[in-house]
């Protein structure tokens, strides 16, 4: 009996990662899969970033310089989809894969093979997405996707075959997200170390738990919506075609029933990251632990029932718009509470300003700003002006870039020492922070004025009166775009260990949590023996 056990343990310890490509293709290891998610997200970030640069280059001056209008619309569509489904969601899933088992003291994700599947669907989906972009350039490829990521019919019914590629892309991405969500929920519910009750779980894990439930609830609605679109396009149904008795507005409801909660899917993991980063660099525990969890659940629930504020201009009944207006304004309660908790965590802390913390602080300020323009947009009468103007573009970039993308950068920099065993070059990190901060604000702050003055969004060419601000926006966008090369360089040098120092197991002075109890870099297998957690939620050596 004892011999068998010993043998089993022995063989378990011995099998390291497979060699070569097999290690990655066949991987069931949460760290390797997490790494693949993150690298995939980084590649897609640069792809989406390149399309953003193309958009801003075209909009730098009035007139058509670089892109013809359909190509412009195609790029606008592609930019949104690549960034949301290719960059932000996989990056957040990568963090979840890497960190959740480490943080809750589990040896791996609960369903490792499914984990492998949910990652490897992504490259296939990305290929389909890129095909939907390039197919029109081949003979017989039909017209380009000129609908924006919202895919509103009837316009989307008129697009060529690339729309079908896109619909299947969305199906694949949906499958991948739902599988990953199931895995995360099962892992969190079943794999926690003894003593790690749900109320002691790190906030990042909580954030992902809420996100995973939200994803499972909303993704099938989008899948249903685009399937109806597919049927309208090829099988003569008329769900969305007024000429056949259908309703173009129905699609908008289905889309935004997914689309609005999706914003919180992008946002919540980042709230989780900030909840780890800010206490670590303030050297005191997160303020308002329970209210943070409550706020996240409240945000996710309320976020699911306010979708129609994206469609005020379709002419709903006055009762309906009143409801959606008040519901939307109420979103400020959970969001306000979260931001308050972050500020109160910094208050009377002992702060240092490493790059993750710099990002965290600027995120709090910029997200509050984006949230306040959100309140303005929620006001129906005023939205009659803001709707579909550049003001909206400025608003959601102020919410999604600090709220999702920059917080993910903060998380990556925060945990990079744990992943690679090397401390990144802090000077490079600060350069990245300041250039991207200045570039970002220069790009999007002026777009508020453009929107108020009457410039619609998604136009390839604009009137002379909008020229100055667009020029400022474009120049800043190039600075912002180029700043990411610093990030790329920083990540590569940290992985390779060029000009870096060795990271300690607890890489940051104030960092708390189980992930800092294992070596840096984290060994291939961690927590094979479950750690013990005391009543206070602390690790017992």
């Amino acid at each position: 009996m004892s011999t068998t056990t010993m043998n089993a343990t022995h063989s378990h310890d011995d099998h390291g990662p497979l060699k070569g490509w097999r290690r990655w293709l066949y991987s069931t290891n949460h760290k390797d899969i997490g790494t693949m998610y993150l690298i995939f997200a980084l590649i897609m970030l640069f792809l989406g970033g390149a399309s953003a640069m193309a958009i801003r280059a075209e909009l730098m001056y009035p007139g058509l310089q670089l892109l013809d209008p359909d190509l412009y619309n195609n790029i606008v569509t592609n930019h949104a989809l690549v960034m949301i489904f290719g960059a932000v969601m996989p990056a957040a899933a990568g963090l979840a894969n890497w960190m959740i088992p480490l943080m809750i003291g589990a040896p791996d994700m609960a369903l490792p093979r499914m984990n492998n599947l949910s990652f490897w669907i992504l490259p296939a989906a990305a290929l389909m997405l890129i095909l939907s972009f390039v197919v029109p350039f081949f003979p017989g490829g039909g017209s380009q996707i000129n609908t924006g990521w919202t895919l509103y019919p009837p316009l989307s019914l008129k697009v060529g075959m690339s729309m079908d590629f896109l619909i299947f892309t969305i199906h694949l991405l949906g499958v991948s997200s739902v599988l990953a969500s199931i895995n995360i929920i099962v892992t969190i519910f079943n794999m926690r170390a003894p003593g790690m009750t749900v109320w002691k779980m790190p906030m990042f894990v909580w954030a992902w738990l809420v996100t995973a439930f939200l994803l499972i609830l909303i993704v099938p609605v989008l899948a249903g919506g685009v399937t109806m679109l597919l049927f309208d396009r090829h099988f003569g149904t008329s769900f969305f075609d007024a000429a056949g008795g259908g309703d173009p507005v129905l699609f908008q409801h289905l889309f935004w029933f997914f689309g609005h909660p999706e914003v919180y899917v992008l946002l919540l993991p980042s709230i989780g990251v900030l909840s780890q980063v800010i206490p670590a660099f303030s050297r005191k525990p997160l303020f308002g632990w329970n209210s943070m969890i409550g706020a996240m659940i409240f945000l996710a629930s309320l976020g699911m029932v306010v979708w129609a504020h994206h469609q005020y201009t379709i002419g709903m009944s006055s009762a309906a718009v009143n409801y959606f207006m008040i519901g939307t304004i109420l979103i400020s309660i959970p969001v306000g509470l979260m931001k308050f908790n972050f500020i109160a965590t910094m208050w009377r802390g002992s702060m240092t300003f490493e790059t993750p913390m710099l990002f965290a602080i600027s995120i709090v300020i910029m997200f509050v700003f984006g949230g306040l323009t959100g309140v303005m947009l929620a006001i129906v009468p005023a939205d009659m002006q803001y709707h579909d103007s550049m003001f909206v573009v400025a608003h959601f970039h102020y919410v999604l870039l600090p709220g999702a993308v920059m917080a993910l950068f903060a998380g990556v920099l925060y945990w990079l020492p744990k992943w690679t065993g090397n401390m990144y070059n802090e000077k490079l990190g600060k350069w990245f922070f300041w250039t991207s901060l200045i570039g970002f604000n220069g790009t999007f702050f002026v777009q508020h004025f453009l929107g108020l003055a009457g410039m619609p969004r998604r136009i390839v060419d604009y009137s002379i009166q909008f020229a100055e601000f667009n020029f400022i926006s474009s120049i800043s966008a190039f600075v912002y775009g180029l700043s990411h090369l610093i990030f790329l360089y920083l990540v590569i040098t940290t992985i390779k260990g060029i000009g870096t120092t060795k990271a300690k197991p607890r890489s940051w002075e104030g960092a708390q949590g189980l992930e800092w109890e294992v070596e840096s870099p984290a060994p291939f297998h961690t927590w094979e023996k479950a750690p013990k957690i005391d009543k206070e939620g602390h690790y017992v050596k």
Partner: protein
Amino acid sequence: MRQAAKIFSLILGVLIISGYAFAEYGLNFPAPATDIGQEIYDVHMFTMIVSTILLLIIFTIIIYSLFKFRKSKGYEADQNFHKSWFGTWSWVMVPAMVLGVDFYIAGEAQGVLDKFWNAPKQNCAREGANKDHCFDMNVKTIGHQWWWEYEFPEQGVNFNGKFYPIKVESRALDKDQTSEELYLRDVDNQLVLPVDTTIRFLNTSVDVLHAWWVPELGFKRDSIPGYIMETWATIEKEGTYRGQCAELCGTWHAKMPIVVKAVSKADFEQWIEGEKAKLLAKLQEANSNKDWTKDELMTKGEQVYNTMCAGCHQVSGLGLGAAFPALKNSPVAMGPAAEHINMVLNGKNTMPAWKQLSDIDLAAVITYERNAWGNSASVVKPADIKAAR
């Protein structure tokens, strides 16, 4: 702290100066031309001011804590701050305060919303109409890819307002430039509306979604095929107001400008009589059984082509990209007339159907396409179109 105050006042100073410098570039809504537009403007300013105050408070607190609670100053973290009474009850206090601000804002907004959301349903001229909420006239705005069609149902007037090409430095475009200021903001036929008249706008579309937006009128409403949206406005100031399509409607979304010219009631009557006379002349022409010569058709065709077709196929006839093929030397324009007529009448893929044009216009434009830019093919007569319909 003194240093912080210095930096802060510097930032504030730069903001104020840049505010003046940018004043001419349109930082805010254009001055509203309607009563409701003014109220919407006020609600917008109100929420913006509340938001700015909140932002400044939060910004100040964060900046203060950044300078005060830093390790480099030897500040020791208060490990029990989250357990104080403040930490215990903040989850009640913060939402209560936020809720207070929310309801304050929502209350302000709701008054305006109730006032303008429902368009008047009754004509003021009708007996027993509610005089406080009735309309004097209707205007139908119909979205097309990519122009606006306007209809005055009571007056029986109908016309198109299309993008009017103006040259801009970076793109050599077309003739008849007026001024660069109006690049992408000018139309061939302006929508003339009377002031001090309650107008009900009936908004729809024939193809994809559009949105009719003139910022000065204070509202925007999507044009949705199969729906008729109702909105209303009483314009108070005479003037020319410019807007454009606000809902992505495909390739030339950027080229759907709207120009509203608000004039006195008397001027409006005069204009509408002129429009009626134009329509009458057109009708007479269509029924005159006149035998059109090739030259006549070519002259008329060029006019129709440059307003209706040049947006995509270009004035030069060279087309644009894969979606908009060149007509110069094209197999359709040089091929049999029947196929060409079918293409224009019924459309294909991105090419819309042009059934709504008169036989004369269609014959002229098809003839033009078949004989311009060095093309040479048969002339198409109005009778051919009639037969093809």
